[in-house]
């Protein structure tokens, strides 16, 4: 079995990439992709900790990761709808364009 540290390391690196993407890109869709990567990194942690616990009888870590996937799906749906709305209003998916409060 691969030691827990390696999973956590991969998860941290994935989280870092996601964060860098969210902070540096201004294309709304790529920002969403970055958020997804961060959520996936968290999921990997949940699964790794769940699997490396001595008592694996319960499926709690697994279920938490499942709920996280559900939340991510909802987040993507709303996020993409916002991007479409932004595109309709501004003809661009550039997040810099969305700095006014009124549409």
């Amino acid at each position, binding site marked *: *079995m691969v030691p827990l*540290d*390696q*999973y*956590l390391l*991969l998860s*941290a*690196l*994935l989280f*870092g*990439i*996601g964060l*860098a*993407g969210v*902070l*540096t*890109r*201004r*294309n709304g*869709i*790529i*920002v969403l992709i*970055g958020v*997804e*990567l961060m959520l*996936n990194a968290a*999921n*990997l942690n949940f699964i*790794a900790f*769940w*699997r*490396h*616990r*001595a008592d*694996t*009888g*319960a*499926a*709690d870590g*697994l*279920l938490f990761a*499942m*709920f996280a*996937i*559900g939340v*991510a*799906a*909802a987040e*993507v*749906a*709303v996020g*993409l*709808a916002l*991007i*479409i*709305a932004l595109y*309709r209003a501004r003809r661009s*998916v550039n*997040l*810099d364009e969305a700095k006014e409060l009124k549409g």
Partner: protein
Amino acid sequence: MGLTFPLLATVTWLAALGAVALRRPVYAALSLVVALLGLAAIFLTLEAQFLGMVQILVYVGAVVVLVVFVIQFTRNDEVPLTGLAFRPVSLGVGIAVLVTGGLIACIAGTPEWAVKPPEGPPPGMRQIGEGLMGVYVPALEAMGVLLTVALIGAVLIAMRGRSTSLH
């Protein structure tokens, strides 16, 4: 195990890097597919079979498909992508590196994880189902409400954009 995990981890990480760094959104989305498949494979090596499949079903089958759909819908290829939101870029990357470094320091700094090698087979579908229908029923119901609200909200947001552009 041997080489499986390092290989999968490298592929996943490089694909994730591509997903946020590639200029063209379509390439980013396709790179994201590779990263998600790699993660699903890692879940399989962790014996979380069901979750690996859910990962493919939800992320590759629905989320990425939605993303490429929106990329096409917004003619994203024609938008100039040179600018960056967090200026200077090095500031954004620096923050990310700092956070990652902190996380890695925490992982490396922990002398020993209070874990024992797992015994016995992992819980199967039955335990997952019982968990969902037993202890976690409130969470499941909340998830249902959340997804319904998100669905309606997404439709409303996308529709309202249309009506304002018409007037």
